[in-house]
Structures are given as structure tokens and as C-alpha cells.
């Protein structure tokens, strides 16, 4: 027991600090990716609903391929493939190589992945907003942007929250994939600790516990958000 505690101590030679630093890094990436995904998702959802046929088809290609491919393949293709392509172009044109930081690339790539899922979640939610809600707003002279901001988005929130909550949890876990670009997030920190100390069980369980806490906390937060978003929903019907 003492042994385990000293392994998990916050300051070196304990690895607790490293794990927490990894956690912090994971959270930053997850926040970034989730946020970017939301932005892409809102734009994508509106594009899918109101866009022209070309835009809609492009978005369909985007969401289906991105959701069908394992994230690892996407990261490899986008991170290495794209930077390689860009650099070859730059070199061909006589410029220096550009440097894209692994973290930025990670956020971008995971954000693009999250965006594909968010597009679908938000599209479903937006389409479920009763048309009368939007019509009432239009009939009173609101501009389309204002209708989206003040009516559609708040109304669909209650429906979108469960899907978004899942996406957030995926984001926190997908950061593990950034190990490939050498980013020291929680999973990698766990493996380093476990491999160095050989205390595999201890560290895997510790990481599992950390993830579980994150996930339970987020679930609670999202549940609160949902309750707030659904504050105007009718009381659940009883009787038949």
C-alpha cells in the first residue's frame, strides 16, 4: 500500500504529478477539439439543412468518411500527409519548411473528427425544433441569424445535450491518439509510468479511475445543462 502511494506521489520520484500533467494536457486538447467540433458542427448542421445541393453533398462526404475511418488513420493521414504535402509545395516554390506543432495539429485533427459527429447530432436536434417556433420568430421580424441564435439553438439544446455529452467523453478519450505525435497526454504518461516502474496494474487502475472521475463529473454537468435547457419542457405526461 505504501508502495503504491509512493508510486502515485505528486512529486518525483512519484508519478502522480506526471499523470496529472498528462490529464491537464488531455483536457486542453479535449476542450480545443470539442470546441472546434462544435463550431464545425453548427456550421455543418446549418449547411446540411439549408445549404445548396453541392454543399450538402460535400458535407455528406465529410461526415460519412470521417465517421467511418479510425481516428488514428485520420491523424496519420492529416498530420503527416498534409504537412508533407504542404512542405513539398513550399520547398518546390523555394520556401522553407513550415513547422506545425503536434498539439495544434492534434486539436485540428480531433476537431475535424468531432465536427463530423457534432454536425449529425446538431442537425438532428435542429430539425426536431418545431417549425412553429421558428415561424413565430420570423413572423415577428427577426433576422435569420437572430432566429438561430435566440430561438433555434436554445430550443434544440435539450435534444442535443445527450449527444454532445457523448462527444465530449469521446474527445477526452481520443486524446490518447495524440501519443502518435508525441504529445504527453494521460494515456502516454500512464504507459511511461507503468513501463518505467513496472507497476502496470497500479497505473492502469489509476488512469482508469481518473477517466472515470472525469466522465462522472462531466455526465453530472451535462445532466444539469440538459435540465436547464429543458426548463420549459412540458411536465412528463401521465395517464393515457
Amino acid at each position, binding site marked *: 500500500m505504501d508502495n503504491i502511494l509512493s508510486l502515485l506521489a505528486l512529486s*518525483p*520520484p512519484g508519478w502522480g*504529478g506526471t499523470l496529472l500533467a498528462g490529464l491537464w494536457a488531455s483536457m486542453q486538447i479535449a476542450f480545443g477539439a470539442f470546441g472546434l467540433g462544435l463550431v464545425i458542427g453548427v456550421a455543418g448542421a446549418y449547411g446540411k439543412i439549408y445549404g445548396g445541393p453541392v454543399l450538402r453533398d460535400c458535407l455528406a462526404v465529410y461526415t460519412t468518411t470521417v465517421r467511418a475511418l479510425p481516428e488514428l488513420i485520420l491523424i496519420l493521414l492529416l498530420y503527416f500527409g498534409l504537412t508533407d504535402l504542404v*512542405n513539398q509545395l513550399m520547398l518546390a516554390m523555394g520556401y522553407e519548411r513550415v513547422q506545425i506543432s503536434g498539439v495544434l495539429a492534434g486539436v485540428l485533427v480531433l476537431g475535424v473528427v468531432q465536427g463530423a459527429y457534432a454536425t449529425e447530432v446538431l442537425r438532428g436536434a435542429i430539425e426536431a425544433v418545431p417549425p412553429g417556433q421558428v415561424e413565430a420568430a420570423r413572423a415577428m421580424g427577426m433576422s435569420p441569424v437572430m432566429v438561430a441564435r435566440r430561438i433555434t439553438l436554445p430550443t434544440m439544446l435539450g435534444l442535443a445535450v445527450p449527444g454532445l455529452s457523448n462527444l465530449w467523453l469521446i474527445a477526452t478519450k481520443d486524446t490518447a491518439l495524440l501519443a*502518435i*505525435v*508525441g504529445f504527453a497526454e494521460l494515456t502516454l504518461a500512464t504507459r*511511461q509510468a507503468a513501463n*518505467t516502474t513496472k507497476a*502496470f496494474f497500479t497505473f492502469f487502475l489509476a488512469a482508469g479511475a481518473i477517466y472515470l472521475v472525469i466522465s462522472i463529473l462531466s455526465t453530472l454537468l451535462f445532466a444539469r445543462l440538459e435540465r436547464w435547457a429543458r426548463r420549459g419542457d412540458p411536465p412528463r405526461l401521465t395517464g393515457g
Partner: protein
Amino acid sequence: ETLRVGMAPEPYPPFASVDASGNWTGWEIEMMEALCKAASYECVITPIAWDGLIPALNAGQIDAIMNSMSITPERQEVIDFSNKYYNTPTVIVAAKDAGITPDQAGLTGKVIGVQVSTIHQAYVEKHFASVAAEVKAYQTQDEANQDLVAGRIDAIQADSIALDAFLASAEGQACCATMGAVADDPEVLGLGVGVGLRKGDEKLKEAFNKAIETVRADGSYDAVTAKYFASSIYGE
């Protein structure tokens, strides 16, 4: 001039690993510092997974790889190498009483574990796969060691030095022992470990080759080695 050197963040003691405070330690780290000093470069470690090292080098995200990467003909098709800076024998480790010998006869019907995409995997696939029951590829050497202890595999093949620490541990001592070195096959096992460089980066290649000679000559190579190993690991 700064140089971005790619290292896999998965620990590979005693060559390279990250300690609890996040510092890189190990023979290869100190050797890198010595080489860079000799070549007057400012070297910065860029962690990239083993999988991504060569793509990253070619994509220009790093300038050199110093991660115990053996010089093999296949790798030489896509990247260049400096001369070797170490070379160690390849051994088979198995349960003490298994009665395994490091050749085809001894490994017939056995399950062999190796680290994925290493020269050892290539060697085992080439020489033993036809007779062995199965060849299992692990992401890290540690995981292969774990499974040897658990008894899921009968033997592992790896770098003798990389296995020293394992064999010295309580677990390792309890279960396993070296069964000897495998027969050499330079085509697979390569010509030792060199610094991986982008193709055509002759300037850097020259600089590293010179630096390796320098550190060998001025005694700093031996000084670093003495901190980690009982004998020289440069190879003959």
C-alpha cells in the same frame, strides 16, 4: 544551430526513457548530447511515437532520429543513416527450464514474442516463423516480457542489453534466462544503430560521422557507456 531529434516517448531503458519529473534519461540521451556537442549543434528532443518517426523525418518535423534505430537495407531506401554508434548482440530469452536453444531446432513449435516492427521481428519472421507455433508482435518490449512471465509465450528475442534490466529484476530472475545469441544476419539485423537522417542531408551525415569518431577518440563515449553498462557496446 538547433537540431530537432526525434525520440519515441515509450520508455526504452537503459537507452532512453522519461522519468517522473519529465526529464529524458538514458545512455542514448547522454550519447546524443555528446554527439551534438562534438558536432556543435543545439539538439532538442522532439517526442514522436516510434510509428511516426520516419514519416516525421521525411515530413520535416524532425531532423534526425536517435532512437536505437538499426541500419537496415529497407530503412536505407527511405532515409539515410550515419555510421553506427552502437551495436549489440541479439539474444533469445526463455523460461529457465525450457531447454530452448537460439536456433530453428530449439524454437520449433514454440510461441515467440518480439517487439513490433523491429529488426527482431524481421529476423524471427525470416528464420523462425516457418517452424515456430506463432510469432506475436508486441507494441513494447515490456509487454512481451510481461507475457513471457505470464507464460503466454515461450521465448522472446531482443537486444541483449535491452533485456538486461528485465533479467535482473525480481520477476525476470524468477522465471527466465538468456538462451544465447542468434546467428548473425546483417541483412536483417543490420549494421548496428545509427542516426536516422533525411535522404540527401549529406551535411548532417558528415557532421554525425565526424562526431562519432570524435567522441570515440576523446573518451567521452566510454565515459557515458561506463555509467550504464559493464562493457563496451560499440561492437567490433
